[in-house]
């Protein structure tokens, strides 16, 4: 199993502890509160991912062929979903992230938030993460 799959299974197991949907949402919100803060300098239009309703800012980074993102949102549920995504992709090899299908989101039944029609910027954020990871992987491959 890949790094991403392991982490995803862990999250799915955590969510299965909650029977009630509201408790799951509460957990999402709480995860958002634990998200590493994004430096104020990156909460600008340059780092903003456009969503109609809630805004998302994404600061990409990497080390030794792995990706590391920091991100934030003005909506708490969106922020919690970001925290979930970053827990899975951060510090994972770019090659893995670039081709990640993030199917675990289906198992968390949170995918409804990740559709373009929710207009919360998350869908666009996932695309950005994949793009960045893809570019990083290509760069590493070229330099090897």
């Amino acid at each position: 199993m890949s790094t991403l799959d392991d982490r995803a299974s862990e999250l799915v197991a955590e969510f299965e502890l909650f029977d009630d949907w509201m408790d799951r949402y509460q957990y999402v919100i709480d995860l958002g509160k634990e998200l590493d803060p994004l430096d104020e300098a990156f909460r600008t239009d340059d780092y903003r991912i456009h969503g109609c309703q809630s805004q998302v800012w994404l600061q990409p980074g990497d080390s030794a062929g792995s990706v590391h993102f920091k991100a934030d949102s003005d909506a708490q549920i969106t922020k919690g979903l970001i925290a979930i995504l970053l827990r899975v992709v951060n510090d994972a090899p770019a090659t893995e992230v670039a081709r990640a299908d993030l199917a675990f989101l289906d198992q968390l039944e949170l995918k409804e938030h990740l559709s373009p029609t929710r207009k919360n910027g998350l869908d666009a954020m996932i695309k950005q993460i994949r793009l960045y990871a893809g570019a990083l992987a290509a760069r590493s491959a070229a330099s090897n």
Partner: protein
Amino acid sequence: MNLTAASSMTSQPDIGTLRSQFPALQTEVHGKEVAYLDNAATAQKPLAVLERMEQYYRRENANVHRGVHTMSQVATDAYEGARSRMASFLGASDPREIIFTRGTTEAINLVANTFGLGFSSGDEILISEMEHHSNIVPWQLLSERTGARLRVVPVTDEGELDLEEFRMMLSKRTKLVALVHVSNSLGTINPVRRIIADAHSMGVPVLLDGAQAVPHAKVDVKELDVDFYSLSSHKMFGPTGVGLLYGKTEHLEAMPPWQGGGDMIEQVDFAGTTFNEIPHKFEAGTPHIAGVIGMGAAADYMEDIGWEVIASREQDLLTYGTERLAAIDGLRIVGTAPQKAAVISFLLGNAHPYDVGTVLDRLGIAVRTGHHCTQPLMKRYGIPGTVRASFAFYNTREEIDRLAAGLERAASMLS
């Protein structure tokens, strides 16, 4: 809702019977019967409308204004009957003053692209800060084409039009006043009678965006003496994709056609084309026949329910809803004009409207969140958006209780 109290009043229909006319109100969302409080976005459709449209498609479907055959004549009669129906619904004396469109947005665009072509540099169009984007952008586009200037009447902290400013902005340069009758974001009912009288005293015609007005109260265009009035069927319990423009005959006859195609012509020749009379001059192509007929059925349905019943039920919901919501810690209502339709826009503490809407959705409560297509208005109040609960006569106090309980829950989760 106190069912016994409601049904014991002879003029009030039983709420259960009323709701049973709207199949979509029985929809379950996340395992609960939906509390549908998003009526300002679109209203649910009664059986009378659904069945009338089905009857057209099942038994009457034929194109209008074309065939000598019986079915085409039946369809034409139904379609033109709906035009007369909508004319009487709005108090217009002549059905030719009713132009069917795709909705309010297209009705406003029609005026901008025909009546508006006469504007030029130095002319002014007066709108307000509380307009829906559909009553802003067509005029911005027109301004770019003609050089006419767009001027914006400010809104007070309570959400009312600043009438003093409005009067000062009216001048000989004003070519049109285009205003919302009832605000979709705030619920404010604008004093359109006075506004029209003021504009007319300067010789300025007035267009009203009536999308949010017609679901709530009787509108009489003759009595208002308004020049143009626009509405959308889907907000008044009719089908989506259809609406209308009312225009005074003298304006409509003077206006050039907009979209070209079948039905709007008299004679087509490559040397030149002559155009049909109003209203057909503005209805190019096969129209939304079923939609128009459905809209007529919706008008019938509303008048059968009765304006008094609609007004008293909505007033009760607005008063009760405002009381219940205002009592929630940290909740701030945006839009507190004394004259309001059954719309409550609000913010819950510092919680993002998106988060509040998401929690409510999980509880089976449908509200609108966001800027409601009124970004300049949100900017005016310095907020990204609001949560909006909007009621129709079929809503109940129990649904408002569910909303209030849901908001308490959301507040504790999002604190």
